[in-house]
């Protein structure tokens, strides 16, 4: 496939996504959630997610506090939405880190082979040898904690996946005619890599990005559940659920709201990931609907 044809295919993908039922629904859910997160962030709806109102402690959902309040009288709706916001930010940054570094490792390794490849594959294998959550856990305890270091910890875990999925296609692309042709015209190799090879592996990377987002959200939540996420009082869905464990008997809404929202959020991300994969990777469509 030539570069231009590929780009056209990707342009069409957006339209296809909207016309597929799952894609449209999941996009709509994500837009609503993120919209609410932004609205809370800019103070358009809800309350300050970390402001404590002691007189309004542990109130059940009502017209003022849509999802109720927690033990400090904080608005759970605002906290949940703000948690969705920070979780999205961390996940997007984490996946970006993973995609950029992983793709570069795959690209350089596959294109130049030799020592570069050996080193890249070595690093990939080492990172792959860790069960993902364990690696994130260890990294998160090393770094001084804020939202960015949490994102780095999660991102590092997913670097090897991107390196693996891109390296293979690069290996075969470098042998393909138009790349050889470009070489023979004396174009430098960096130019070839970014002008010709990178665009051709972009759909693979995009599919992987789409699939990784939901993992990143879940990993971030698991880390904050274990007390290794962004430091409090910043709201995080995982730590809200952790705190709700002790409250669930007397104030069950403290568990329901973050629980329901995180499941909805991850379901939407998974559906979106599947839809994007189906659209960009025709092979998968037949078997995985």
């Amino acid at each position, binding site marked *: 496939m030539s570069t231009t044809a590929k780009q056209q295919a990707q342009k069409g993908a957006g339209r296809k996504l909207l016309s597929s039922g799952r894609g449209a629904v999941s996009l709509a859910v994500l837009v609503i959630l993120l919209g609410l997160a932004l609205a809370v962030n800019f103070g358009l709806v809800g309350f300050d997610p970390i402001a404590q109102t002691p007189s309004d402690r542990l109130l059940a959902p009502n017209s003022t506090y849509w999802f109720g309040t927690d033990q400090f009288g904080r608005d759970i709706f605002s906290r949940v939405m703000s948690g969705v916001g920070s979780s999205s930010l961390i996940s997007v940054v984490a996946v970006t880190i993973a995609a950029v570094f992983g793709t570069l490792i795959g690209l350089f390794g596959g294109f130049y082979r030799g020592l570069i490849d050996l080193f890249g594959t070595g690093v990939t294998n080492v990172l792959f040898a*860790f069960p993902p959550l364990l690696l994130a856990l260890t990294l998160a305890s090393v770094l001084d904690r804020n939202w960015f270091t949490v994102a780095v910890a999660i991102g590092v875990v997913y670097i090897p996946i991107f390196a693996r999925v891109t390296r293979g296609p690069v290996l075969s692309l470098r042998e393909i005619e138009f790349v050889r042709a470009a070489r023979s015209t004396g174009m430098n190799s960096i130019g070839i890599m970014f002008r010709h090879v990178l665009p051709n592996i972009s759909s693979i990377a995009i599919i992987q990005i789409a699939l990784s987002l939901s993992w990143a959200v879940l990993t971030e939540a698991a880390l904050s559940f274990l007390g290794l996420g962004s430091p409090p009082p910043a709201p995080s869905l995982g730590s809200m659920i952790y705190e709700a464990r002790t409250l669930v008997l007397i104030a069950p809404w403290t568990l329901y709201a973050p629980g329901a929202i995180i499941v909805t959020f991850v379901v939407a991300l998974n559906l979106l990931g599947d839809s994007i994969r189906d659209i960009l990777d025709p092979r998968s469509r037949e078997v995985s609907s």
Partner: protein
Amino acid sequence: MTAILRSSVIRKTAGALATLFGVAVFVFFMLRAIPGDQISASLGTEAAGLTEAQRQALVEYYGIDEPLTTQFFSWLANLFAGDLGFSVRAQQPVLDLTVAALPVTFQLAVFAILLALIIGVPIGMLSASAPRKARDFVGQAVSLLGLSIPAFLLATTLLTFFAVNLGFNPNGLGYKTLFEDPSVNLQQMFLPSLVLGFGISAPIIRTTRAAVLEIRGQDFIRTARAKGVKTQRIQFRHILRNALIPIVTMTGLQFGYLLGGAVVVEQIFSLPGIGRQVLLGIQQKEYALVQSTVLVIAASFVVINLLTDLLYRAIDPRVRAE
């Protein structure tokens, strides 16, 4: 075993060893970057009252007086002698602790995988039997939920529900091994493996469904159908058997993940498994414990992946020919 297979075994094993060395380097130096040492971890701010001589005595007590590289190589040398280090806190060799913890996680992982297969394979086959029909959507919905419900949420909800509403809280009894008390042990493993099994059933459903759909479209099935072989027979004899290859691969992969990935569930249900050992070690800054345990987990992970890979090569003729 063919020559190709044998050389690939050797190559893969050498690669695995190199990888484990990388893991050792990575783990060792990463842990040293955690702020605070074992002295401040165990004494807290009380460490401020230590005199210089006392601090020196403690540094030697915890074995953190040597330069880092010396510590690293003596650790490696000891590993080859079967000495994983000593936990000052537990006053026990790390090897003993690991030998006690590994079977807990192993048992949990086996149960979780079994439950995942019991849930996943039938649902995957049902889904594939009528693509894009109602039962396919139900199957896919189950797998979507399995992928999307965080293990800690499910675990928390189940634990609270069972403990409060049914008075069922076997995990509060203190862990019992299968040999000490089989009945209590199985009860203690039930909810945790259900939580993990539900999560893993998602990729199993997807893999089963995809594999069945792919095989069904292949020539030999069409031929069998044309010959009038019964549908049920085709389903089990031909399709499932061939679909097993990717399912086995997926299962092996998930088993490896579980060794470290069960940490959240082990923590919630107070199971003294290998993941929890790492988590506690990190909290208590017991480097000797964490570094060796992580290495053991990584080694098991690498070995399981290697075995899965070899198994896959052995049973799939296409791969062998490559």
